[in-house]
């Protein structure tokens, strides 16, 4: 299996505060990889570094061998990394449809806009009825669907989801997980940050436990599910 995304000894942080240290990671084509672990240990920082919102202070990041770590965020999107950020970050004064269309802003994605819009509506039928509503007036679950849908509109090679179930009601979490399972079945490469390790373990090919800025454990979902007690200290279970 060839690696799609490769991180080698990546360090990053805010100002003088280093949040992630010497992280290395390889994500294969078509894999679903999950970053798990307690809050404040660098999961979001790692995604923001990959998508270029933060510049790494050391190490290299590459997509199919092409170095990304000195590029601007817009160039990284163009290269094929799509980041659905934590808290959705929708455009509140735009409608649902306008938000989704913003996902297809780049010319290459714009050509596929009509087809991808249908795919998003197939995945989240609720959004079809909400098309004309301002994003700022949506419920939390609808907002999350727009956020993920907007990411899907961009196409890309790798989809990064930051805590897609955060702050949602259990029934909505089920819907979101159903969508993630559909994406995985369609062969999409996904890097997902998730607090709920047991839940994502059922879906993920590989899990990485991020503790204090570096990986404390990596393994398959089956391994995690078969011996959760060894990780209980990290996961607070």
């Amino acid at each position, binding site marked *: 299996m060839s690696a799609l995304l490769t991180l080698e000894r990546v360090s990053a942080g805010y100002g003088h505060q280093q949040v992630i240290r010497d992280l290395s990671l390889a994500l294969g084509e078509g894999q679903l990889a999950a970053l798990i672990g307690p809050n404040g240990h660098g999961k979001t920082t790692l995604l923001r570094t990959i998508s*270029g*919102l933060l510049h790494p202070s050391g190490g290299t990041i590459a997509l199919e061998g092409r170095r990304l770590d000195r590029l601007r965020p817009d160039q990284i*999107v163009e290269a094929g990394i799509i980041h659905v950020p934590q808290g959705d*970050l*929708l*455009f509140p004064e735009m409608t649902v449809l306008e938000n989704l*269309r913003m996902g297809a802003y780049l010319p290459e994605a714009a050509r596929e806009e009509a087809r991808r819009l249908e795919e998003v509506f197939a995945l989240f039928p609720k959004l079809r009825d909400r098309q004309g509503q301002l994003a700022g007036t949506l419920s939390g679950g609808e907002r999350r669907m727009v956020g993920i849908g907007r990411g899907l509109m961009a196409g890309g090679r790798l989809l990064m989801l930051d805590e897609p179930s955060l702050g949602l009601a259990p029934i909505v979490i089920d819907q979101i997980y159903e969508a993630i399972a559909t994406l995985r079945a369609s062969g999409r490469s996904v890097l997902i940050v998730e607090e709920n390790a047991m839940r994502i373990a059922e879906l993920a090919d590989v899990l990485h436990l991020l503790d204090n800025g570096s990986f404390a454990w990596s393994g398959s979902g089956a391994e995690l599910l078969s011996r959760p007690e060894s990780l209980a200290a990290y996961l607070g279970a």
Partner: protein
Amino acid sequence: MNVAIQILSSGLTLGAIYALSTIGLSLVYGSLNMLNMAHGALLALGGYVCFYVMGVLGLPGLLGVPAAMLVCGLAGFVVYQLAARPMLASGGFETRIFIATIGIGAILGNVIQRSFGPQPVAQPLALHGALVLGEVYVPYQNLLILFVSVAMMAVVALLLGRTRVGRAIRATAQNRDAAQLMGIRIGRVYAQVLALSGALAALSGILISSLSGLLPNMGGDPMLKAFVICIVAGLGNVFGAVVAAFLLGLLEALIQYLLGVQYSFAILLLIVIAVLIWRPAGLFGRRQVVRL
């Protein structure tokens, strides 16, 4: 009835001028969180470039206006490249750019005064004559100002609402991080917004000077009013700013008629204070700043 037409005519003219000088300011604040204190100097620069092209070079007004818009658009771009861009990279941007643009405005004002002198000059681009409605004279110049402003606002609205560039500007104003994650190069958006704001300032400066003549510091008063309008509308809310501009223009004309010119600005400021006590985020502002 005649009085009403008179007030309406001067109020709408004032409102149109205010709206035009406010849009640029509001756009820049909306997308960069930048209070551009050089805006007044750009208004004056636009007026003088038009004066130079028409009055000194003797070319027609149809060249003077675009030339002024081009020069001020470039000036806005230069402000981005030399001042805003380097400052965006580090913290405290809002304060630092505020002070930097005061300096840029002072330099521009001095350059204008050196080149054209401190004495007032007439703007050659002016229509003479008036439309007579019963006993009321509505100067053609007022109608021209109203027409040009409304046309320009329509162009800006189309640009923001219907074009790819406009979508990028709105997205950047509403969420900077998300805009970048859509593949928008926000540095380019900032440069475009400052250039557009400069071009709008030029047009506004030409219209203002066609009524009251050119002076190197002519931009100060309109810029102050533009800030007032921005705050009343909610900072960064462009469409709100247009509505607020016309409201305040009409109000000013009414106060001038009822109480006299000397009271208009004081009452305007009183209204602003009242609005801000009543609605701290501005008339059209929600709890957070509403963007574009």
